[in-house]
Every structure is written in structure tokens, then in C-alpha cells.
């Protein structure tokens, strides 16, 4: 049985770090559903969120095998935790005529913002849980052809449950590109 495992980790911001982490998953034949990575307040560290289809038996082992990588500060499994999960999507809907105003009303329910408009299409930006995004997409595609880019899930453990070290803000944060 496979599950969608949600892994949050802190890695050194060094060449090859992403390859090493991804390699632990891919060498086992696990499919990575999404992976986001960006530097933290300490620019020498990056925070990564991975969602992967993993055998239920292998979850604990996977965390330990990622944790032992030399560049990995720590990895935690947030699958069963009440972590905050968010994802951003840009959705372009091709819609003309009467349906345009009704689309905007529905987008409003999901707090999706219009970030680009043309006579033939709207581009919406929406943030939310992956489930919320899925629900919106289900509605929008009834209006016409859609195009979409999703960021992949980002997760942050709740304050009391956080097991990752907290990177400290450094002046270098602003000076680096």
C-alpha cells in the first residue's frame, strides 16, 4: 500500500543537495508528486517540502536515509501531523461572453485573484490547501479550456510540533540575489 508522504527538511544550500535527496527517493522507484525548495532566512540553508508516493512500510526508513545524507540537517515526516499545507496555482481559463462574470463570482468564493485579463481569458492566482485547489480546478474547467501551473505543496509544522531547527535570520539574506 502506498501513501502520499509529506516530508519537510532542512538542507545545506550546496550543489548536489537536491540531487542527493531526490536520489534517495528515485533509487527506490518512488514517484515524487511535488518538491519545493528555496533558501531559508539563513541563506546557507534551504527548506524543502516533498510529497512522494511511498510504501507505508518504508516511511520511517526513508526519513532516516534522507537524514543521514551529509548535506541534510534534518528531515521530518509531517504526513500525519496537523502541519499547515499550502500550494499556489496560476490558472488561465479561456472564457468569453456571458460566462466571464459568473466565473469571477466563483473565483471569489475561493479567494482567487485575477492577475491577468484579456478578452479571451482570465489568469487567476490562488493559494490554499491542495484539496481547495483541486476543488477550484474542478469548477473552472467547466468554463472552457484551462492551463495551469502549480507550485507543489509547502508545509510548515505548527509551533508546538516543530522538530526542525529554526534557521536564524542573517544580514546576508537581503544581500544575496
Amino acid at each position: 500500500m502506498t501513501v502520499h508522504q509529506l516530508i519537510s527538511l532542512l538542507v545545506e544550500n550546496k550543489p548536489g543537495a537536491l540531487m542527493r535527496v531526490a536520489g534517495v527517493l528515485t533509487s527506490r522507484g518512488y514517484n515524487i508528486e511535488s518538491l519545493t525548495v528555496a533558501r531559508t532566512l539563513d541563506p546557507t540553508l534551504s527548506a524543502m517540502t516533498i510529497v512522494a508516493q511511498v510504501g507505508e512500510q518504508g516511511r520511517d526508513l526513508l526519513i532516516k536515509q534522507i537524514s543521514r545524507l551529509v548535506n541534510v540537517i534534518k528531515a521530518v515526516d509531517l504526513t500525519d501531523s496537523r502541519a499547515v499545507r499550502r500550494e499556489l496555482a496560476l490558472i488561465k481559463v479561456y472564457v468569453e461572453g456571458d460566462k466571464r462574470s459568473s466565473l469571477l463570482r466563483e473565483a471569489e468564493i475561493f479567494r482567487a485573484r485575477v492577475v491577468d485579463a484579456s478578452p479571451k481569458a482570465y489568469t487567476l492566482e490562488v493559494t490554499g490547501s491542495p484539496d481547495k485547489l483541486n476543488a477550484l480546478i474542478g469548477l473552472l474547467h467547466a468554463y472552457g479550456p484551462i492551463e495551469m501551473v502549480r507550485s507543489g505543496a509547502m508545509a510548515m509544522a505548527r509551533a508546538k510540533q516543530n522538530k526542525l531547527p529554526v534557521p536564524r535570520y542573517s544580514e546576508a539574506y537581503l544581500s544575496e540575489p
Partner: protein
Amino acid sequence: MATLSGAQILIESLAREGAEFVFGYPGGVTLPVYDVLYSHPLRHVLVRHEQNAAFAAQGYARATGKAGVCMATSGPGATNLTTGLVDALMDSIPVVAITGQVPQALIGRDAFQEADTFGISRSATKHNYLVKDIGELAQTIHEAFYIATSGRPGPVLVDITKDVLIAAGPYSGTQRMEPLRGYRLKCEPDEESVERAVEFLWNADRPYIYAGGGVISSGASAELVRCSELLEAPLAHTVMGLGAMPTGHPNFISMLGMHGSYAANMGVTECDALVGIGVRFDDRVTGRLDRFAPNAKVLHVDIDAAEINKNRRADVGVVGDAKAVLRRLNARLEETRATLGRERRGARLAWMERIRRMKREHPFVYDRSGGDIKPQALMEKLDAISGGEAIVTVDVGQHQMWAAQYLRFNRPRLWQSSSGLGSMGFGVPAAVGAKFACPDRTVISIVGDGGFMMSMPELGTIATNRLPVKIIVMNNNTLGMVRQWQELFYDKRYSEVAIESFPDASLLAAAFGISGGSVTQPDDLDAALEHAFAEPGPYLLNVQVTPEECVYPMVPAGGAVDEMILQPDAEPAEAVVGD
């Protein structure tokens, strides 16, 4: 601060790390390094194939515990190293591999002899680097040695672009390694887990210790023996653990697993407390996992937290260096022996007696009849020559298992076997590295005819350096272990296992300028071996053995270890639990 070239910084940093030998093969992008080596005291050993550079570096590392160093050029040089690196990764052997890379300006343009060494070696190493800045070179070399030799040892590859090797940069020779933020070592065990382990051990009626390569790499043999003596518990070893306890120790019950001893396999099936130290519950040990040690609770000691619960759930897991853990454990066992240890001592002694009886009644046996040399007889004779003191390097297959069964080892770091990856062609180059490491010790390389053909070019290295290595080819004219499986599980359909056209050993040796010979008759074997070992230089002895022999006992792949086949046409043994 001196200004040196990248190539000089590399060699000075290797020397500063205590490297004695570099096993390597030059090429286009490593020319600057070889120019430095031309007049540097650091000894370079020119092998005949890069794969053998990695194996020779392992031979050095396995014999000494220090990191072995190998070097190759970009492209094919680096890709040829790969098997030797994966091999070191599987067996947790410290190796530092240096590879040249095409100049940065050419990377990604499919330059001549360009390969993505950094990407290719990612899964072949414990850690790897691509150095593109001369300012990071010395630090990187020091990190590589530190990572290779600390914690769970393993191979580390440093890929260096040619422009870095040529560039000039400052070198102080006093660089300190920056702390590695993501690399945490946990050598000392938690006090609480040690206490749980003590309780676990004294609560057992039938304790059983299963020791592996982790004991060797941590140098914990004395502590392991002491632990077994304090508990009065039998001790079996993995193929990596051979030598951790002297073979002659009364608690020693040989190897467990696929070709393990009767006592070791029945013992693990019957025990109620299984103590794994520096082991990884490999499938060749456990056979069918759900039938492995079915009556036992498990105490697992390993320096790598990812090993605990990987294959077999541990009731007590202790993360730490085997030596540190065993020291703490032994101290607590001694303190509690007269109190907690007394309660079940009667049961433990009866269990030990039962195991010793199994060991007496079911030694490794073979059919001594027939007109050919029996491979097991060859191993017995080599054992007599070694007396438990020679370094023995082996390849992979039947001869490896017979050597593990029949040869004694009085101490660790004498036995060298490609155990996890199972690479044929390991034995001869490993012997090269071992002999450089230990020039005063007898080094015997026992190989099969198949594996020998893979490593034959190293006769050149052996001849050039007049390395007095004794190569004993156990020649059954067949890929024996594959043939054994075809005999037992594929209806005797012997597909592509005959090794024909094996060269005449004395002519082959002579062609390299060394001594060699062949022996085919049992009556001539003693004299042939005596001659081989009396020769002051290297010797290649081809021993023609009976081709039909199979390795027993044998647990069929996926079978339970107590269902081992003890001898040809025999019914599987049955364990009597709780007898």
C-alpha cells in the same frame, strides 16, 4: 603562505591526511597531478585498470582501517572506478577517490573524456564533491577523509576540474576543517538504551550474538569477545564479520546464513534473544525474513540509525559505535553479573552446551572420496599454511564460501571479501593493496577461475612491484556458484557457465615474468603449495578441482535458515525449538 598549484595542493593535502599510497591510472586531465607525483615522496601505484585501483585502495583500507586512496582521470577513468566505489559503499569501507574532470569551460559540452562523474558517483558513494574553486580544494580533501573514515565508513569521491589543478592558489598546510552542519556522528550510546540492553540480555535464556563488519571497522573485537564471555553466549558472524572473534574461541560457531554452519543457523532459529552488532540483517543472512529468528526478541547495535528496524524490527535499538557501545555494555554487565546475571545463568549454560553439541556434531563436511582435488581440501591445506595469521582476499562465489567456512582467522582485518556487492575480480587487486599495507604479512588471494580472468591484468602490477602475493586459483573450469544454482534450481541446464580456454598458469605467469604452476592431482597438492609459498616472490598457482562440488549447507534463496540443505540429496534439516 605558499602559493601552490591545485595539483600540488591536492597531493600535499593527501599527504597531510596520512595517505601512504595512491592506487591510480593517469590520463589527460590528471596530467598536472602526475607531474607533481613525478618528484613527490607520496607513493603512486600504477594499476592496470581503474576498477582495480578502487579495489586495491579497499585492500589497503580493509587491512589497516585507514582510508585507501585511488585516482583516475575523467570520463572512462571515473566510470571504471564506479564498481569499486559501490563495493566499498556496500561493505562500509573508507576510500577516497580522486577524479579529474574536464575544464569548467568545457563541462556540459560533451568534451573529450567528459562524463558526469558527480552525478554518476552520487549513488556510488557516501558523499561526493565537484571542486571548481581552488580555494575549496584543501578543505574538500580534508572533509573527504573525515567523512570516509568517521561514523559508518564509506567511499567519498572528489571530482576536480583540470583548470583547478592548473590554477595557483594559497596553501598554508594548516587548514582546519570547518564543522559539517549536516553530518552528525553519534558514537556514544544513550545511557537509557544501554540500560534497556542490559535488562534485555539478562532476561534471556538463549542469547545469541551475531556480529558483522561494524565490529571490525570500529576495532571492537576485544570488546565483542568479552561480551560473549560475560554472557556465556554463542557468537556467529556474517561474511564481513569473520575475524571479529578468533575462530578458535569456544563460543565461536562460524558464519550464519545461506552457507552458514548448522550450529549458527539452528542457533539463530532457536534463540530467544538475538544480539546483532554492526550488522544489517542482509537477505543472505536472514533468508526468509519472517522465519528468521522466529522466537527471538532483537537487540540491534549499529552506528547508522537507518539500519535499526530496516529489515528486522528491533525490540531494543542502540545507536552508537560498536566499541563505545560494547564498552558501556560490558561494564554494566560486569556490575550486574552477580545479581541480575545469576537468575537465568543455568538456562544460558544449558543453551551454550546445546549449541556446542551442534557445533561438534555438525561441522562443515564434504565427501572426501574421488580422484580429484576437492575444493574444501584445498581450503583446509591453505588454512594449515595460514595458521589463522595470513591476509586472505577472495573473489565471489563458491571458493569465497568455502574459504569463509574452512579458514581460521585469529584476528580482524585479515579476511577481505566483497561481501555486499559481490564483485568478481575483487580478490587479486585487493591483495595488491593489502600487501602494500602489510608487507610483512603473508597475503593469499584465493580466487575462482572466472573472477581471476576478470582481474588478470593486475598480474602486471604484481610483477612490476615484485609483490610476493600468492594467487591460488580454485579452478573448476566453471562459474561454480551459478552452476550450483542451475544444478539445484534450473534442472541442471548448465547455461553459459563453462569457462573454457583457461590459460596455462605457468606460461601465463612466465609471460608476466613471475612464477606459476598448475596442479591437478591430490597427491601433488602439498608439494605444489609448498613450492608456491617457498618462492620469495609472487606466485600464481592454478589448482584444478572437481567441477561438480556444491557448497553446503545451503539455504535456498527465500528459504528459512533452519531449512538448510546439509548435503547433496539430503532432506532439509528441521529445527527442534526449545529442546
